[in-house]
């Protein structure tokens, strides 16, 4: 379990992490979601003691990271797969970690096999690795000590689709065995398929958190009809809020209510469903709208 409590980090006048609190529970995959520069990496670095917090605390398995006697056996950390000595071979990098943790040497071969790095690849220097191979090596390092908690910053970066699928299954299995997985991403689709819980961060502040189901429910209903004006009028009359896209409405109510209103208004529907999928993305853009760099106006609204 990871507990983050009122974490704040300021650089001069700039607040990179602003009063962030959340819990990543065991047996679940917690997705840490936010646009670039939202404070995800800083928060993760504070968790593992690489960056001192201005105020607030972070505990892993009930203790401060620095108080863990042999952290590698309790917390697997992958913050940046490129942060490896380019002159070492992949196997050597794992061997250093294995020796530091005091594990048997066979763990290195086991991990290489687990992340599908061949003996030939493991013997190459990391400067010749693709980002995907570095990512696999980083995951191997994180899993080496068979820890109960995983903290991974953008682990899917550079992986090909098969690699992403592989990692998703790996992390899912890990959480199903009771492990705690915290992974960050700026890619919604990646996190949507794997996370049980979501923590959404923008400009250092948490803008939403909860189970994926809860957050998806908040994404409303998508409805399509050939007769948009009539349905829109019915929704306005019923005091239900909605936004209009080119050929559909996204309604801030559940599908049941929208269906009834459409029936009462006598409007034929071509589609009616919970606004998931694209919904989470819209939620994400919406939640981070005032806190992101690019101005994405809600073009279709009204």
């Amino acid at each position, binding site marked *: 379990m990871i507990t983050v409590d009122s974490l704040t980090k300021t650089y001069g006048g700039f607040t990179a992490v602003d009063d962030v609190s959340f819990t990543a529970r065991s*047996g679940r995959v917690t997705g840490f979601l936010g646009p670039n520069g939202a404070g995800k990496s800083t928060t993760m670095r504070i968790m593992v003691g690489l960056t001192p917090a201005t105020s607030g605390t972070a505990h892993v398995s009930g203790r401060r990271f620095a108080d863990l006697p042999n952290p590698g056996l309790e917390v697997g950390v992958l913050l940046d797969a490129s942060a490896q000595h380019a002159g070492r071979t992949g196997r050597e990098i794992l061997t250093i970690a294995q020796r530091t943790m005091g594990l048997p040497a066979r763990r290195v071969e086991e991990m290489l096999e687990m992340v599908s790095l061949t003996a030939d690849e493991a013997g190459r220097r990391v400067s010749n690795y693709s980002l995907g191979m570095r990512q696999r090596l980083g995951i191997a390092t994180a899993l080496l000590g068979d820890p109960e908690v995983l903290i991974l910053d953008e682990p899917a970066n550079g992986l090909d689709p098969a690699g992403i699928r592989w990692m998703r299954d790996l992390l899912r299995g890990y959480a199903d065995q009771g492990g705690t997985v915290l992974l960050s991403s700026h890619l919604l689709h990646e996190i949507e398929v794997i996370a049980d819980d979501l923590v959404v961060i923008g400009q250092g502040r948490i803008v939403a958190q909860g189970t994926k189901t809860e957050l998806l429910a908040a994404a409303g209903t998508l409805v399509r009809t050939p007769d948009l004006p009539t349905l829109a009028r019915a929704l306005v009359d019923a005091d239900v809020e909605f936004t209009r896209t080119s050929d559909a409405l996204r309604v801030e109510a559940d599908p049941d209510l929208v269906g009834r209103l459409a029936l009462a208004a006598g409007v034929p529907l071509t589609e009616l469903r919970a606004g998931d999928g694209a919904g989470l993305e819209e939620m994400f853009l919406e939640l981070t709208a005032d806190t992101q760099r690019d101005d994405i106006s809600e073009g279709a609204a009204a």
Partner: protein
Amino acid sequence: MTTLTLEHEHENERAHRDDLLVARSAPAPIPMSRIVAVELRKSFDTRSGFWLLASVGILATLATAATILFAPDSEITYMTFGTAIGVPMAIILPVIAILSVTSEWSQRTGLTSFTLVPHRARVVNAKLAVAVGVGVVSMLLALGIGALGNLLGAAIVGVDPVWDVAAADLVGLLLFQIVNMLIGFMLGVLFRNSAGAIVGYFVYSFVLGTLTEVLSATQDWFERIQPWIDFNYTQGSLTEMSAMTAENWAQLGVTGLVWLVLPLAVGLRAVLRSEVK
């Protein structure tokens, strides 16, 4: 409820897992000896690290061979060999010390090193121990190669080998190089950047050393105070340690405090507190 059953299942799996992990349910702290061993390995296991260490032997051999080839017969003494070997050592050993520290930042391996061992002071102490250890072994090796060269040179020239270096001066020579390594280490923690620290070392030891030499040769006032402010100068007196007076030691202590210990303390403080990115 599904959540309940799920949690129940998790507990079962958890218990199973705990059974498997019972031997290391409370991990023992990482012993210092292990960190030192890992740091030692890290100074050999890259191409640059390997060749830097190998060059200790290679350059000591080259310096010895050059002395046999080019030194006049009357100069075939152990002192000549010791001096010839000292020059490349004064360049390589500090660079080894510098890179052991700065690569954690320049190559960003600190992200892993300082999360596997979250107490940076332990990692840095281990690096210091390794640097001093490598320095001592390297110098013993180099002086050994020099001794062989002296025997060989004397045999070629056809004279009795001359051992004109007092035991105390051998120790002094060793200390001289260890101080060089510490200077490298200090610049490493201060700059935390490979190129910066290496350039810093050459400025510190060679440029500054030459400047103060010129200054003391031309300015009387500087020559008078030099023993109390010039660390290169006082460090040099170590090479003739048998002749060092109590005052010389005091001068070495004062200059060493200002030029080595204080900046080292500033650098260590920065290492312990800075952000590792």
